[in-house]
């Protein structure tokens, strides 16, 4: 019984992530062939640090996607967080900035959640609308001017390295990933997230407060967008009105490539991390291979489709 269970699990539940893991491994092997520098310690550490913003944001977004919501607003949420917390960093110090920043994320997430559940606006439209409005708010607050003056020692959180080697943002990413994986797999909340996305009506009929679950998932998405925004602003020690523009699609791509279904009900933290790396090493390897940026978009798009296509094809064959 026990072995049967394990076998069936590895065969069914995790197969999407497994396919993507293989894709990632193949990509890595190709990268190493193209340029052995790829697996040098410093490059690996760079990759960890560079992908941590998208990676962290994906940890929250995946909750929204599993409940069957979209979150197009994370880029603006991150930017607003960056702006608000920059003011706070300058005036009141690190803790105040982080606290206010996280509040911003929660607030935007809450607005999204209430609009989606209580007013009944489609999640894509809602978050597209908040994306635009929140970006507008950023323009109004900043007057489109960049703000500088964050104390230089706060830079440690964004750019620092523990023991001179391990990047701090990567550490944040790993810790949050472990926590969120636990929440998703081991708690009742996680269970309800899957159930709500898998079949909202069935979950509701079973007494799950699906509205609350959807709201919480969008709040988590906003919260992690805010964490991403904080890392972003502490990396570059300033904030700009157009900061993080287009990040929502990067984050979403990472989740989707990692096996999260846009129809809801499916997804995992491990998949998210794999997806983040698949999308994240493209720029790195194209540069290491000496490919001009002109080719980057074309290749990124093909890899995005290719990765998901490989999964669809293998899934079809498994059937």
């Amino acid at each position, binding site marked *: 019984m026990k072995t049967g*269970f394990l076998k*069936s*699990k590895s065969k*069914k*539940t995790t197969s999407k992530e497994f396919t993507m893991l293989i894709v990632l491994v193949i990509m890595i092997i190709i990268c190493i062939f193209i340029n052995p520098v790829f697996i040098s310690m410093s490059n690996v550490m760079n990759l960890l640090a560079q992908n941590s913003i998208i990676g962290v944001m994906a940890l929250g977004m995946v909750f929204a996607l599993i409940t069957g919501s979209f979150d197009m607003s994370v880029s603006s949420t991150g930017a607003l967080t960056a702006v608000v917390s920059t003011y706070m960093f300058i005036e009141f110090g690190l803790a105040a900035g982080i606290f206010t920043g996280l509040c911003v994320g929660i607030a935007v997430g809450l607005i999204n959640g209430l609009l989606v559940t209580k007013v009944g606006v489609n999640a894509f439209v809602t978050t597209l609308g908040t994306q635009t409005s929140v970006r507008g708010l950023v323009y109004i607050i900043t007057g489109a001017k960049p703000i500088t003056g964050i104390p230089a020692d706060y830079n440690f959180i964004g750019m620092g390295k523990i023991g001179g080697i391990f990047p701090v943002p990567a550490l944040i990413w790993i810790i949050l990933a472990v926590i969120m994986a636990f929440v998703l797999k*081991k*708690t*009742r*909340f*996680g*269970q309800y997230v*899957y*159930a709500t996305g*898998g*079949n909202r*009506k*069935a*979950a*509701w*009929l*079973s*007494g*799950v*407060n699906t509205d609350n679950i959807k709201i919480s998932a969008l709040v988590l998405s906003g919260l992690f967008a805010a964490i991403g925004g904080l890392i972003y602003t502490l990396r570059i020690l300033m904030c700009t009105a157009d900061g993080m523009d287009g990040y929502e699609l990067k984050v979403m791509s990472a989740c989707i490539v990692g096996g999260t279904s846009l129809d809801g*009900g*499916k997804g995992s933290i491990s998949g998210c991390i794999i997806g983040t790396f698949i999308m994240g090493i493209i720029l790195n390897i194209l540069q290491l291979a000496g490919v001009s940026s002109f080719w980057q978009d074309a290749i990124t798009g093909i890899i995005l489709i290719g990765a998901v296509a490989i999964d669809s094809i293998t899934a079809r064959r498994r059937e």
Partner: protein
Amino acid sequence: MRGIIKEFSGVRVLNQVDFELKTGEVHALLGANGAGKSTLMKILNGIYTLTEGEIYYDGKKVRIHSPRDAYSCGITMIHQELDLVGCRDVSENIYLGRELYKDRAHRILDRAGMRREAQTLLDELEFDLRAEDLVEKLPPAKQQLILIARTVSCNSRVIVMDEPTSSLSHNETKQLFKVIKSLKRKGISIIYISHFLEEIFEVSDRLTVLRNGEKVTTAVTSECSTQQLIQWMIGRESVVQKNIGEPKNDHEMLLECRGLTTLRDCIKNVSFQIRKGEIVGFAGVVGAGRSEIAKMIFGAEKMAAGEIYLDGEKVVIKSPTQAVRHGISMVPEDRKQEGLVLKLNVGANMWLSYLNKLKRGVGLDYKSLNGKAQQMFQHMSIKCEGVEQGIDKLSGGNQQKVAIGKCLLNEPKLLILDQPTRGIDVGAKGEIYRLVTELARDNNTAILYISDELEEIIALCDRIYIVKQGQCVKEIDNHTQQVTKALLLKDMVD
């Protein structure tokens, strides 16, 4: 429940309905399609809020606004629709909303425990299910069993079962009755909705009949006769009579299948024939593979081997589109998922398949389409406001009739009916039987009839094939042989 009134956008669906349930009884709720049975029960379960009326529970007035309220009162319901979370496993679905915890304070799940407990429960109920299977991979019958197991495990005092057997086969139904009896012994009350009258007689103590949203009567089951029930439900009498006409052995051969085999190996080497104007029945237990065979002919299931001859010519049917072009139509067994486009109106559903026959590149002639639909409404006595009504607003039975009407509009040479009477009241069933026989007699249409109800197979079909474990094991001629239910059952099971 007293004086229940329910209106949907001004339309009164339930009018002054009283309903009472005693502790430890099985109370059947009967009525034609659209009588309001499900609506009444959804009110009891907090899914709809009532327009007027009161609910008393243990003598106290209660307000039930959500399934959660109902659950805390000790009321749970098995819904007519199979509402399960497809992408999670059986145990998670059974315990959804009532998870077991390792650490209750922090809501940390005990997955292994849930699996174990679920498996124990399933074994106790003698349901053939594994706790770790993914729900979406299971056929409807098994999903129904999950819902039953789930409800049983809730330890409720009142269980509502809305057509639980509509997708179950004989054995599973027997299993369910065993469960119901043991629940009754524990003092649990059950409200049982079904269109199968013999089930009502078998399990229920009392019954309440609804007609057009009003209560007709409440009676003790053992004091009623079948005819009386039908009279109450539809206001007139109706019986399933054997009506198979003349033998069709001299008719031209329409369809001949040789050695059909699926890729997945569910179906192995199936051969059979159907003549023009002949009704051929497929009898078998759940999962025997009847639907798969039908889908294969219809091009909806990939064929690994085998040949299909239509009108004596060999044809290759790779998709339903081609099947429809060849004059084959199918009414699928799951009308919600496969039969109807619930977002569209009645008309668009009705003429969806027929459009294939129209010439290309011309604007649609809505007048004639509308006329055709109206004709079909009359022909099949479909109760609806007109072609513009949303099909999701029709009762299940009327939806099913639209699904059949859609195929008839096509005037097919071969009509495949997969469980056409599932979830349909006796009155409507009678009409469908009439339709089917007329179609075979007057239009010379060949009909492949798949059903779990052996009576109707015996009453309608010229020939019957017994399907067992993906194979046609026996062919019975209904004209020359004396066929009984018991006989068929024996063939199906052994």
